Structures are given as C-alpha cells and as structure tokens.
C-alpha cells in the first residue's frame, strides 16, 4: 500500500515540477532604456505614405495659422 503511494507520488512529481519550467513572464527591465513597443514616425502611415516633406508642410501650415497677425495679410508664398 505504502509502496504504491510512493510510486504514485513519484509518478506525479515530474508533472508538478513541470510548472517550474515555465517561461519567465516578467519583463527584465534594462535601466535607462525604453522597454516598450517601437513607435513609427508621424509621416509613416497611410495618410502621408512616408512623405516627410508633405507632413512637414502640413504642420508648417498649421503652425502659421496660429499667428493671427499674419493671417489676413497676403504673403509671397
């Protein structure tokens, strides 16, 4: 009876220990380095299709709109 119990425990033990072999689920943080997902440039999308110049022009136009003193006056460009 006792021998059977020991055998049963010995048979189950490897399965119980298998849990310890799981992969580390905790992120290993490297001090001073961004650990998250990489982000793309604002012009790398379907809208601008990687055209940095077009994006910069769009932003420049929006920047200039904020200057109300120059808004009404005609400019050369």
């Amino acid at each position, binding site marked *: 009876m006792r021998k059977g119990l020991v055998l049963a425990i010995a048979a189950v033990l490897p399965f119980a220990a298998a849990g310890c072999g799981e992969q580390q689920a905790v992120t290993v*943080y490297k001090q001073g380095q961004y650990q998250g997902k990489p982000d793309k440039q604002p012009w790398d999308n379907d809208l601008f299709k990687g055209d940095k110049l077009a994006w910069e022009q769009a932003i420049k136009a929006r920047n200039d709109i904020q200057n109300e003193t120059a808004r009404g006056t005609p400019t050369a460009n």
Partner: protein
Amino acid sequence: MARMKFLADAERCIECNGCVTACKQEHEIPWGVNRRRVVTLNDGVPGEKSISVACMHCSDAPCMAVCPVDCFYKTSEGVVLHDKDLCIGCGYCFYACPFGAPQFPQDGAFGLRGKMDKCTFCAGGPETDFSAAEFRKYGRNRLAEGKLPACAEMCATKALLGGDADVISDIYRNRVLRRGKGSEVWGWGTAYGKPERQPSAKPGAKS
C-alpha cells in the same frame, strides 16, 4: 523639423477652458482624468492670471528619469510619450513632474490606481497609427494627420500656442513687442531650460 513645444500666454488666457474641453472631446478622456487644465492665480483679484497647463514635453523630462519600468520615450519631434502596456501605475512620474501632468484613472470599487495617462501632444502612442487600440489607450493621433494639438488649435484667443518651437516663439516674441509687456512665459524655463536629454553612453545609467 524642430522640436514641438507648448507656450501659454498668461496675458491672453481668459480662463474659458476651451482647451480642456477640446482635449476631453478629442480623446474621449474618462471622467476624473484631466490631461489639460486651466490654473488661475490670484483668482478674483484684479489682475488675475490664468495659464493652461498640461504635459510640456520637457527637454529633460523628469518623468522619464524616475520611471522604474522605463516606459517613457521621446519622439524625434521632442514629444514625450509612454507605453501603457508597461506602465505599472506607481505614480513616481506624478511626483517628479513639475506640472502635475500625469493623471491616474481610478479603476475598480476600491479606488485602485490605473495606468498613467497624460497629454500626448495629440501624437498617439506606440500602437499602429489610427488604430482602435491607439485611440483607446492614448487618444487621437492628430500629429500623424498633419495637425497640431486640438487644445492649441481650438484656443480662441490664441493664448495657448503649440507646435514648432521656432515658429511659436516667434509669434510670441512679436506679440510681446507689440503690447510691450508680458514677456514671461510661464513654465517655459522649467520645461525647456535644460538641454535636450541625450541617451547615456554608459551602460546601466539612466538615459
């Protein structure tokens, strides 16, 4: 492209909270989280001054320095963003920030602190541009649409300027020359007074 900055003109702000509303509406910010707010000094006293405050996307951002999980990063435009998947909601950034920008949504019945939320300069986050996941976690990505932050664009008196540092500082300089007063830009020195943070070459050191 120069770096992006915010500039709050205390001489012009009329405390209308249009910037706060624009931000809330644009990103569908939950109740209790204020990415942007208007602070009034000497409220009710003649000569009171109001300024619109949010994350200033500092040159040498203290939140980046103190984050124990290093979830902050800075884009090539100088916008300080963070990865919500990594944030543990510890609140260190809140204590480090001179502007009180980091916000923590209250999760659950016991007032648990959720993941940090802050102004993204309407630049989204580290998710696919215009995706549902990006909107849910970080709000709308206006910068990728070729637009500037909604708060600055919405400001009726143009007290809040946001965009290319060179352009907005030129606008402000001209204003000061015209009106002959109010050259002090609130928070500008605190946010942009220090040189741009460079990644440390020394392994193991904070960037």
